[in-house]
Every structure is written in C-alpha cells, then in structure tokens.
C-alpha cells in the first residue's frame, strides 16, 4: 500500500537526503550511514529518498532497496501515530505471535511493516522485548500488553480510537 506524501514532505525528503549525502561525501561505501541518517531524521526511508540516493551515488536503485530491506532496522513506511509492535521472539513465536500479527494485519487491513493510509497505525514485528513470561507480547506505543489473545486485538485498537463497528458491518456484507 503506497502512502501519499505531501509537497512539503517531498521538499523535506529532498533536503534531508542532500544533506546526508553531503555529510558522507557522496561515497558509495557510506550507503549504510546515509540510510541511517535519512531514517533518523525522517523516521523512515521513503521511496523518493532511495531514488535520490541511487541517482546521486550512481548505483542501481535496486541496490539501495536491497540494503534497506536486508536490515530490520530500516522501515519503508512512515511510523503511524500509534505504533503496534508484535513480538516475534522465540517465546512469543511459540505462543502464537504470528496469529496475533495476522489479527492486527486483518483488522488494520495492512501487512506487517506497513502503515494505514491515514497514518493512524503502523504494524511491525520486533524480536524479543524481554518479557517472555508474558508471551505473546505486543508493544503498543510504549505500553506492553501481555498474554494477548486474538480476541483482545479489537479492544486494543478501539482504545486507540479505531472505529471497529463500521468495519464489522462491511465484513459481514
């Protein structure tokens, strides 16, 4: 799902990338620090940023994308107003973390790693948040939710202001 960006954001991306490139002397072997700098300032790596980096460094666009998708550190979508992080560490995995992930994905109608078009919610996986006894764990913004069941997913989202009722009607059809 593509997230629309405003003209203002486009400008910000341009200048941020230009500065990150400048700071790293347009060196290809500095691709990683360039990406880190851009994400550090924008919160994610927009498509436009990767295109600009590729053309400035004179490398194929797919090479930038390749690095950006290899490291879990990088995100391709803007963080949502509410960030939902589903733990996929060993304990949570065993306790059905992927089922929780699927439930959120279905409810929000986005895939793991994506952000809803209204930018209210983003969904991502994290690897072990350090409270395995509570598996499966979901970190919502900065709050830890333990022993999450699929039936809790709607409640969590509703508390964050998602209108669930409407969606239900649609789904029943």
């Amino acid at each position: 799902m593509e997230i629309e960006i405003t003209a203002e954001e486009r400008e910000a991306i341009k200048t941020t990338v230009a500065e990150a490139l400048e700071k790293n002397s347009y060196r290809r072997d500095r691709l990683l620090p360039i990406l880190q700098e851009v994400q550090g300032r924008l919160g994610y790596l927009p498509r436009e940023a990767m295109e600009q980096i590729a053309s400035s460094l004179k490398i194929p666009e797919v090479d930038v994308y390749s690095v950006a998708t290899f490291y879990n550190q990088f995100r391709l979508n803007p963080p949502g107003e509410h960030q939902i992080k589903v733990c996929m560490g060993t304990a949570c995995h065993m306790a059905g973390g992927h089922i929780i992930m699927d439930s959120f994905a279905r409810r929000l109608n986005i895939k793991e790693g994506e952000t809803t078009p209204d930018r209210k919610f983003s969904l991502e996986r994290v690897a072990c948040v350090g409270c395995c006894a509570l598996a499966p764990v979901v970190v919502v913004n900065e709050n830890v939710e333990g022993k999450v069941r699929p039936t809790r997913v709607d409640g969590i989202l509703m508390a964050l202001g998602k209108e669930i009722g409407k969606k239900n009607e649609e789904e029943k059809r």
Partner: protein
Amino acid sequence: MSRQVTITIDGQQVTAAEGDKLLWVALDHGIYIPHLCGIREKEHPDASCRLCFVEVEGLPNPVTSCTLPVKEGMVVRTRSERVDRLVRTAFELLLSNHRLSCAKCGKNGRCELQKIAQERGLKLKLTRMRSLLVEKPVDDSPEKFYYDPNRCVLCGRCVWADREKAKIGAIGFVRRGMDRRVAAFWEQPLADSPCIECLACVEACPVGALVAKEMKE
C-alpha cells in the same frame, strides 16, 4: 599464460591451467559435479548452493569445487559417502521451498535441479523435510519472459548477468531469510523497472524461475 598442470579426477588424468577452479575443469572434461550458484567468470564465487562438494586427497573434509584452484598432482574424488550426504541434504533444503510441479514448469527437461537429481540418483520430492513454500505471485509483466519466485533457488546468476553482461542494474536480491527473492526496485513489476528485456538473466537461470515466454508469430 598460466602453467598447465595435471590432476586426477575419479581416476581420470586431466590437464588444466593452474589456478582454474576445479568445478569448471571437471565439467570441461565431461565429469559432472552438481552446481547452481557457480559462475565461471567470477573470481570470488559465492559458494552458496553447497552442491559442488568433492573429496581431495590430503584435505580432511569435503570442499566446494567452485572455490578450489587446481594444483599440480591434485587427486580428486567427486563421490564419497560424505559428499553424497552433504549434497543430498543441500538438495532437499533447496526443494523445501520450491514449487515442485515439473510437468507444469517452463523448464521441464532443461532444468538443472532435474539434472542433479538424475546424476546423483536423488528424488525430486521431499522425504525428510516438510515444505516451507509460501506461494508468492509470479511476475508476468515483461513481454518476453516471466519470473516465478516460487521456483527460484537464489543462485544469483541472473543478478550477475544483469550487472556484468547486460550492464543494466535492473534486478537484485531483496529482503532476507525466507523472504529473500530476486526483484526490481521497490519490488515493482519488472516491466516498470530499467529492464530492457535482453534475456541475459533468463539465459543464466538454471531452473524454472526466469523463463522465456513462447513467442507467437
């Protein structure tokens, strides 16, 4: 010109240029060693498919022949119990996320996996492992070929051809782990990428992942 050396492979004496990689020396002399990721022109092979193992006299463990420079007097065996076991496991691992349906595959009869199975008496099905294949959509967007990620063995030959032969830079490896695949920037359809459809990658692909479409008159 580099020095000619004589080595022995499976009891057969062959001559080769010193330093050439054993895999290609053997293949040039009609001695088959399974291989998928090997690229003759590449100085530092990836050695990622783990199929080209051989035994070399004086070395304690089997070694990958695609990375092994030949030396005068080298004595090689392409088969042993240990080699067979390594190859069998690597082969089954590859099949464990492969859409195995040769009858419906565009490379049926011209596929390197089929050749390896035949040469080494291996089955083209899973016996010890379960399938981890997660079906991914086929990219049918180019006019002259398609890409089926479900049959890709991630050998990297297409990416090499795209860079070194076509000199384009349209495709590369993206993501990691079980999600790793060959794709264009932003995983957009190949038709929207810089790809010029020269088919260099299609020729390089050893399996049914990049396949030329049947051309109608």
